[in-house]
């Protein structure tokens, strides 16, 4: 323990703490921009300057370590002046289109200017116009708004261990870009969108489908069908001002109806369907000597990641499509048959917590229905924007259920949205498939929580099934390196690209606060507990689908509509930064 003095108060800190961290423990907040909890300290922006007694020059609190007896002042006239100057310098090089910027309600540069009392700009505004990077279907980058804080670089390299972006050039030419400046769409970017969550300004944001969806809704010749991922219902309320973790499943359906979608279904239906197919596939691999460990395949960020960095392990991936894509294939085959509609008049929209889903929907092979299975993907944030545009007050809406045909779901489906949820759902059904009896204690608590990698051994009849769960691609690498080395002891591995799982996806309310992500996860476990059916194979709509249309899991129709192939890509990187 180290004792230091901050602003006249004695403060206790650990050895190795920075001044900023020590101050936080004592509820003293030091202004900052490039610092972010969970990322390595960079010390680049200069906003966190503080004075240390006995030292002539101020020091940057986010990188300076505490020392016993240190006397720190965080609020002198000198540091106030420096901080204002730093903000003025940043603003002198920043586009002045706050009125139209996508982050104008949630911009940390704007907050800094406001909190530090910057009331005049002494410097002329000079912005060299750089082109937007629109090479990716998921994420757009605006290098003009970038303040070079490097949070996105640290997230992509150190946390996600993808490394698609880095600094290049120097001085006034310094910029964040991909290898060779070719653009995200031509790089090993997996579209996870975690960079969006850490960007303090509007330099990175999702490619918007809002106008396309309004056009479809307004088109009287089109029947617009919508599905929503589990994680959306745990965060849509938060995005619209309700406390984090407020479950708004019913209100979400009601809002979609009010927005003008013709049929409101639910991705949770196809999550249950995914379990039927994937559970059967797992049992088949275990009993007939198939490739093990099997990996889950519902996360498109993870899919692109394994295609880029571990293409040799592709045979381990389940051949099942994600719930979004299984739904899409059925939305233009099964649904129009039952509803007596023409598939070419159906527009298939999904609401996702995810930016990678926009990439997934555009993958060339995702057209098993004979049409594009999913036409447009909206993030949770985009849906909230549409709700605001329509003047709908979400909190006042009654709870509405999704239409049963492709909207009934069990508790197993809804926990798909949180890390460990897919694994838990799969085991609840695999148990029945293998033993013929129901797993009684279906709350598989060891699979829950926010620890990066969690493992469990589950007794299923005579078999002991060894499973692992990882979230965040940095953690995925650990498990993949183990598999590559031939040392993996598991039968089944669940990977979610985003820290926290889909509740922390690139399309969710902006922020990298793991406590908030955990709270959203809790909302899903709560919904699970409240539902009458909690095992995927007990979903009556899924049973009806097999009886009336698919016949059986892994059958010919399933194979054609619900399973897929993967594409090795040429990143060939074996290491990380």
């Amino acid at each position, binding site marked *: 323990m180290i004792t230091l003095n901050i602003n006249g108060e004695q403060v206790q800190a650990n050895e190795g703490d920075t001044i900023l961290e020590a101050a936080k423990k004592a509820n003293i907040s030091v202004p900052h921009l490039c610092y972010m909890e969970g990322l390595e300290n960079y010390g680049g922006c200069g906003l966190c300057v503080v004075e240390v007694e006995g030292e002539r020059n101020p020091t940057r609190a986010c990188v300076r370590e505490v020392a016993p007896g240190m006397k720190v002042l965080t609020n002198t006239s000198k540091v106030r002046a420096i901080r204002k100057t730093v903000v003025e310098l940043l603003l002198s090089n920043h586009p002045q289109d706050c009125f139209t910027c996508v982050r104008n309600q949630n911009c940390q540069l704007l907050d800094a200017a406001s909190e530090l009392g910057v009331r005049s700009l002494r410097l002329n505004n000079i912005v060299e116009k750089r082109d937007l990077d629109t090479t990716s279907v998921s994420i757009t980058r605006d290098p003009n708004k970038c303040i070079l804080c490097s949070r996105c670089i640290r997230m992509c*390299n150190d946390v996600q261990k993808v*490394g*698609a*972006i*880095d*600094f*290049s*050039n*120097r001085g006034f030419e310094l910029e964040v870009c*991909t*290898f*060779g400046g070719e653009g995200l769409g031509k790089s090993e970017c997996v579209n996870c969108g975690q960079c969006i969550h850490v960007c303090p300004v509007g330099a990175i944001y999702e490619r918007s489908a809002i106008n396309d969806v309004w056009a479809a809704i307004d088109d009287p010749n089109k029947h617009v069908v919508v599905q929503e991922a589990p994680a959306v219902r745990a965060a849509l309320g938060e995005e619209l001002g309700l406390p984090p973790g407020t479950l708004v499943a019913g209100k979400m359906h009601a809002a979609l109806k009010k927005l003008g979608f013709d049929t409101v279904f639910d991705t949770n239906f196809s999550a249950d369907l995914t379990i039927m197919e994937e559970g059967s596939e797992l049992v088949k691999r275990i009993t007939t000597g198939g490739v093990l460990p099997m990996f889950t395949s519902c996360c498109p960020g993870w899919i692109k990641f394994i295609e880029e960095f571990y293409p040799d392990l592709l045979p381990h991936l389940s051949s099942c499509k994600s719930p979004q894509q299984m739904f899409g294939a059925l939305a233009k085959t099964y649904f129009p048959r039952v509803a007596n509609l023409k598939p070419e008049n159906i527009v298939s929209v999904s609401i996702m917590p995810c930016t990678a889903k926009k990439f997934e929907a555009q993958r060339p092979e995702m057209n098993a229905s004979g049409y594009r299975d999913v036409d447009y993907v909206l993030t949770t944030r985009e849906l909230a924007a549409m709700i605001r545009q329509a003047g709908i007050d979400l909190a006042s809406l009654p709870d509405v259920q999704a239409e049963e045909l492709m909207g009934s779901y069990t508790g197993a489906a809804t926990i798909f949205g949180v890390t460990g949820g897919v694994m838990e759902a799969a085991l609840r059904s695999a148990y029945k498939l293998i033993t013929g009896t129901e797993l009684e204690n279906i709350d598989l608590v060891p699979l829950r929580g926010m620890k990066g990698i969690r493992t469990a051994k589950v007794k299923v009849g005579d078999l002991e099934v060894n499973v692992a769960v990882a979230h965040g691609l940095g953690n995925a690498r650990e498990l993949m390196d183990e598999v590559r080395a031939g040392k993996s002891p598991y039968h089944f591995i669940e990977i979610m690209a985003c820290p926290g799982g889909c509740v922390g996806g690139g399309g969710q309310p902006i922020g990298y606060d793991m406590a908030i992500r955990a709270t959203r996860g809790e909302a899903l476990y709560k919904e699970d507990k409240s539902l009458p059916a909690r095992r995927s194979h007990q979903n009556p709509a899924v049973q009806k689908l097999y009886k009336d249309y698919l016949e059986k899991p892994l059958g010919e129709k399933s194979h054609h509509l619900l399973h897929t192939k993967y594409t090795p890509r040429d990143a*060939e*990187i*074996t*290491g*990380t*930064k």
Partner: protein
Amino acid sequence: MTSAVKEKMSGVFAGHKNAKKDALIPILQETQACFGYLPDEAMREIATFLKTTPGAVFGVASFYAMFRFRPTAKQRITVCRGTACHVRGGPRILEEVENVLKIKDGQMTADGEYSIEEAACFGSCALAPVMVINERVYGRMTPVKVREILGKKG
């Protein structure tokens, strides 16, 4: 990766067994010496070899002016525009080079044989005006000497 690039790169890597990241700049220099510039493929090979990302390799390479990302001319002509050279007729030398080669400063001839650049100062002020072709320094230049030297190389 084409096998030609892979082969040349394994030659470069052979001199850096068990290299760590601090070998990056020497490896980049040797790679550029090999190819005349840094091909994308070669940079990706370097990233794999040093167990880092292509972005990191590109970040370091793009920081330094000496690394090039496009093939350079066989004869790179650099005319000095420093103070001493300027005062002793540097601009007239540049003009003559442009006339003889029929390209402007910053361009390369269509056959990839010649390119023209300017430099701020070579530090050979006693030999002003100075023109450099690849590594070779030509001092006390005159327009006549430009025609002679380039004629010889033409």
